[in-house]
């Protein structure tokens, strides 16, 4: 029984990256004209588009909350996003779980008490899935919320890490993710240095887990730097267009 080598003896992964190397990040703000805020976020081949509508009037009166805003989130994957065509892109258990996870993660950082009796909708659509869709969605949602001008405590960034062939690996792609090894997804508030999301599956000894989680947090901080650059560039463009 041959074991697939996820990390070659020279220290290269299947796609030529080093174990501590992230995939290439690319982000763009303001892609959906009709939305209050929107963003496209790419991590390697994983491509995700997020749109934020809000704060707006609550559509379901029975869910109205008097002292803070209601945050809703929907995650769906396009039929063509994965290798085989998906039959049920939303409403299945995985999508419902990820919608809940993203909602709770973003709710933690939005200053909801500033917008009582209103609703903020975050919609995330996966266009291409190659591992790390959860993280890409959270990063895209952060950018979209910033584009919509919704007040937040801090940006939320997320990254995943794993452990294969006795090496901690940063930012797993689909092949590495389905290898059966552990997959740790972390979401942090970088300036406040607090963890809001932590998910792991498969088995891992506790001391190795600390290494892997530390690696994921480093990845989150790198994403945070990139996101800040993108937001700064966007603000400069706006300044320029307004002639300031």
């Amino acid at each position, binding site marked *: 029984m041959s074991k697939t080598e996820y990390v070659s003896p020279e220290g290269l992964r299947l796609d030529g990256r080093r174990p501590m190397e992230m995939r290439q990040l690319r982000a763009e703000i303001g892609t959906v004209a*009709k939305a209050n805020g929107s963003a496209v976020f790419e991590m390697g081949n994983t491509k995700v588009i997020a749109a934020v509508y809000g704060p707006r009037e609550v559509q379901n009166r029975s869910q109205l909350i008097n002292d803070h805003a209601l945050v809703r989130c929907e995650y769906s994957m396009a039929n063509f996003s994965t290798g085989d065509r998906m039959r049920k892109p939303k409403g299945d258990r995985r999508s419902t779980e990820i919608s809940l996870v993203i909602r709770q993660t973003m709710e933690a950082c939005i200053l909801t008490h500033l917008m009582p009796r209103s609703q903020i909708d975050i*919609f995330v659509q996966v266009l291409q899935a190659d591992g790390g869709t959860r993280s890409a969605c959270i990063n895209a949602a952060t950018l979209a919320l910033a584009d919509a001008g919704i007040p937040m405590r801090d940006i939320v960034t997320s990254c995943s890490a794993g452990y294969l062939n006795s090496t901690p690996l940063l930012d797993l792609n689909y092949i590495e993710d389905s290898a059966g090894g552990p997959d740790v997804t972390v979401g942090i508030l970088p300036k406040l240095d607090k963890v809001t999301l932590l998910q792991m599956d498969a088995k891992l000894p506790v001391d190795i887990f600390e290494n892997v989680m530390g690696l994921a947090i480093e990845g989150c901080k790198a994403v945070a730097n990139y996101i800040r650059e993108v937001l700064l560039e966007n603000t400069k463009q706006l300044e320029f267009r307004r002639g300031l």
Partner: protein
Amino acid sequence: MGLPNASGDLSTEVEVDAFRRLFPLRFFEKHLLESIRPDARPLGRARDTTIALGAVASANGSALAKIGSTTMLAAIKMEVMAPSIETPDEGCIAIDFHMPPICSPIVRPGRPAEAAPVVAKQLSDTILSSGMINLKELSLVSGKAAWMAYLDIYCLDADGALFDAALLAAVAAFSHLEIPVVSLNDDGKIVLSEEQGLSDREPVNKEKRKVNLGSIPFSLTCILHKNYILADPTAEEESIMETSVTVVLDSSSQLLSLYKPGGAVLAYTSAIQDCIALTRQRVKELQKILEEAISGMEVD
């Protein structure tokens, strides 16, 4: 009650944005009198259109089409299936149109947009009846295996003229489609050939090939209001003036489809003929844009 006068007086006091929201019809009519629209387009001109092929790397064929702000992403995935008994040497195309909640503030999760199934049906009818794809080309082994092409179109931004953008994206995706190489394995099942090296099995089709497209359909939606004809409406225009006419012509200017789903304005034949003339012009523009996109991709 003197309401027209009231709005007339208000129009001098109220800001342009407020007037646009409070009295949308009067706002547009003031523009139409000068033969122009709020985004400075003349009545017969469509918005800037762009096509990008190969937007989705994991699909067999894909395209992103933008008409103004309206954005459509189309992708085709091919699967092998057994053909039906009545048509043993024909493949099949399944067309699906989705409007996810990101595209528009009026689409809610759990409550799909009204326009989505309408556009899906229109697209399906137009593409299948246009003869653009010869289903016999999608056959692999007569009676045993044929290709099923799943075309999924996602609206990423809904700003009017949804059918036009969706049809353009679908046509562009088909022009980018490459049929993968498959071979017959020992159980008689069709299997994707991953590399050239696995040549102990006879490949059924020798190499990745493009689909031969017959006449390509292009469309233009126009809005009728009193005696004005506005080409390529935005979502705002569509919501105020509801009578629309969609004309689909193929590349040889033959009429493929005409769609006027009711509406307050009753059109004389002359109005319909004007719409067809506008569509004819638009078809030439769209053909040029599609050819540029295709030749751009072929510079390999």
